């Protein structure tokens, strides 16, 4: 295979693949919709796809389980094929690469040399730092060295999943290998953290296509997470929220409440403390999400979630917008209500009223 000339734009490639302009515009509209953009921004998407060459991506794997790659290829809009063949140039990726060994390392060095400041470094997993980094080596060198060498000339870094963003399971106590997330090892580079174990597929492709479309990083919060996907708690938009507000909870697995789909808070659900899009996008093209299939959220996109207490233990406090209510306080309200013979639904009503009030305060505070 010969390599010739300047990389082509996404539109060039799509057109070459037999996609006519009408279909191309439809594709851009869907892409914009997938990113939650207003229809007025579609022309910007079109422009970006027409004029930007495919950006080289180096996708490294450190200490990890490859669930991020697996999630990535589950993306339904856009599908993985479109991303890999039409949108980015996935020049290095252990999991899918045809070449191996020296041939693949040669590619990595070549991209660094020929596209300094232009390529994206995507990192899945993290680097062990104990004992000189011997707990993960690639091509005879430590992953730590490979990561640093590749990051040095990257345009920016995408830290896929909780391993790369937060450390995840191998950095849970006592962190035997000294595994550290990317942002603790790489400095002076823009880093987008995309946490989750794994992240939702469409969040992953959404982050990439946002950058390709607008030519800039998405707006990030203080943990370097894209605000567009990580600004809200799962609890805030959970379809079972009404049961929480009404005081209707699953009390034991497989009980009547479980069959009716009541709130899983008492089973340890971490939805109230977890920032992610699960309750809005859902998983695998909207089929379900953990709570929707009867198990509480384990908080897999939160920092240090493996060490935040056994995930079947009820949360000690439930953050709701504007207040930090403790479950004991809520339970206390219920108990008092029951004690004086007031119907349970009245207690629920009181709780709900309190929450409504607190939401109101929250809104005011934001204003």
């Amino acid at each position: 295979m010969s390599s010739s000339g300047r990389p082509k734009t996404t539109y060039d490639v799509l057109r070459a693949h037999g996609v006519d302009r009408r279909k191309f515009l439809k594709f851009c509209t869907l892409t914009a919709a997938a990113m939650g953009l207003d229809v007025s921004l579609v022309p910007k998407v079109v422009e970006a796809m027409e004029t930007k060459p495919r950006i080289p991506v180096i996708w490294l794997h450190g200490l990890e389980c490859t669930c991020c790659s697996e999630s990535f290829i589950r993306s339904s809009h856009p599908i993985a094929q479109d991303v890999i063949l039409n949108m980015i140039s996935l020049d290095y990726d252990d999991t899918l690469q045809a070449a191996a060994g020296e041939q693949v390392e040669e590619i990595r060095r070549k991209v660094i040399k020929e596209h300094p400041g232009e390529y994206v470094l995507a990192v899945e997993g993290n680097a062990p730092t104990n004992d000189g980094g011997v707990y993960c080596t690639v091509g005879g060198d430590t992953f730590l060295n490979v990561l640093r060498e590749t990051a040095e000339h990257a345009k920016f870094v995408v830290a896929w999943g909780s391993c790369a963003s937060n450390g995840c399971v191998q950095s849970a106590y006592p962190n035997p290998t000294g595994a550290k997330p990317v942002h603790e090892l790489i400095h002076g580079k823009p880093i987008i953290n995309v946490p989750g174990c794994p992240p939702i597929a469409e969040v992953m492709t959404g982050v990439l296509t946002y950058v390709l479309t607008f030519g800039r990083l998405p707006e990030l919060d203080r943990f370097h997470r894209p605000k567009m996907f990580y600004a809200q708690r799962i609890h805030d938009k959970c379809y079972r929220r009404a049961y929480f507000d009404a005081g209707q909870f699953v009390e034991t697995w497989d009980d009547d409440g479980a069959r009716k789909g009541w709130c899983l808070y008492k089973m340890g659900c971490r939805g109230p403390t977890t920032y992610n899009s699960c309750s809005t996008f859902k998983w695998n093209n909207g089929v379900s999400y953990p709570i929707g299939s009867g198990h509480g959220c384990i908080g897999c996109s939160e920092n240090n979630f493996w060490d935040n207490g056994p995930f079947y233990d009820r949360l000690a406090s439930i953050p709701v917008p504007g207040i930090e209510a403790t479950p004991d306080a809520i339970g206390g309200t219920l108990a008092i209500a029951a004690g004086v013979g007031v119907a349970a639904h009245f207690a629920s009503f009181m709780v709900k009223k309190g929450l409504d009030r607190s939401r109101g305060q929250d809104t005011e505070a934001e204003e």
Partner: protein
Amino acid sequence: MTAQRVVVDPVTRIEGHLRIEAMLDGKGTIQDAMSSGTMWRGIEIILRDRDPRTAWAYCERICGVCTTVHALASVRTVENAVGITVPPNADIIRNIMFLTQYVQDHVIHFYHLHALDWVDVVSALSADPAATAALAQKVSPHWPKATTGYFSDVAATLKRFVDSGQLGIFANAYWGHPAYKLPAEANLMAVAHYLEALKWQKEIAKIHTIFGGKNPHPNYLVGGMACAVDMQSDNAINMERLNYVKGLITQAQGIVENLYIPDLLAVASFYPEWTTYGGGLGNYMSYGDLPQNGIGDPSSFLFPRGVILDKDLSTVIEVDPTDPEQIREQVAHSWYTYPAGTEGLHPWDGVTEPNYTGPKPPYKQLDENGQYSWLKAPRWRDKAMEVGPLARVLIGFASGRDEFKEVVTEALGRLKIPAAALFSTLGRTAARGLETRLAAHWLRAEFDRLVANIKAGDQRVADTSRWEPATWPAECKGFGFTEAPRGALGHWVHIKDGKIANYQAVVPSTWNASPKDGKGQHGAYEAALLGTPMADPKRPVEILRTIHSFDPCLACASHVFGPDGEKLAEVVVR
């Protein structure tokens, strides 16, 4: 050609980090080989003192490619320790998730991790679309996308992609290597189906999402499953959800029967010499799985349990993973230390003390006479064993199970090869396809069983009588297992006062990718490489073929801690 050492690191299109070093003689034939796992995470150490009911989630993160398998082994382990029998629906739903994983994982392996060892993408550029359509119709009469127009589009897509100069994952590979034997049309057909399979794999995964809330890494539960079943609820597993699952199963059966198997047999027919390379150890082991009458009754398993030694299909030997005399791990060539005078330890008594003695990175080569891997060397009665699809199919066949005999006999007949051809690289790759046929068939059977059980009035999915640790004995031990897509997987737990005192796993890729043991016996990968001729040692297609035929999964390769929570014992997970 002079004698030389070939190093492949990283081995790509696998899970995790694997390094292969092969020593070639003057004729380019592999005389010795080293398999080195180059990552270690220590997840079993991390599990100590945690709530055993949460162990499945930590264990599940051992691997995201074979997602679910460690979670399944883990919940079974804890249930075994504390004495829980899950309701039939839970067993069946777990079986459905297990089989979903098989079908998804094996199809992905064939097309996206293994096919490029046999399929030359560049050669596909010169294919005639009409001839490709004719070939495709002949190979698989019931697969609809087999028209000249369809293959013209695929060819155009490929050509423009190559012309763009940005070759992405296909760059710098081994195209044009003399080991590639498929005609251009077969290559184009395979490239088209690579893309079809990539589009489809996200669909079958939805079965995990329905029952477990997400994929990768769906949720499990000690005591059963968390997805309540209620035909009268719009918020549980109900008719709508069951219909969704049924549709996905039907679609998967179509993919297996009309895409995967025809492609597998078509590709295999061009590589008869690969039924003579890559056989390796000739010892096979399976723990068995797919309970039809509860996990406590191995005789009911659809995948039978057993051991085959020295390729002798006339005898299936019993295996007991809880017997300290049978399974032991050695560390003679692994980066760990054992107490002086200890050769092998059963997982119950395992010790994991990492002790890196390899060269300081960056290094050029490892020392085959020293320690050279983060993997231990598990052995069954001191013998190295191969686990995985070939082991399961051979054990099913040798156990006289009709379903196995049927698919094996049919495939051998179509390829016109003898049963002995199964002991090879291609045999291993074919066995994976054959058991996928069974898996797709069983998937529907398990679905029907679930419906029948619900129809009989049983909607239970969990036994919560021993959910609270207060109901457990003060101290207990448990063993759980599964047949992961890559082979026999065992977890061992020791629970004290409601917490994990010791957790250990011995995983499939540890068996297969293990380094040599104290007696110098090679692991399965190493043994399978011996005697293979390489046409061009700088472009190691032959090594990749055999290693990929095992479907390596290295992330699981970790070790754990000691028996009483005192010492580091070990768990090998991959």
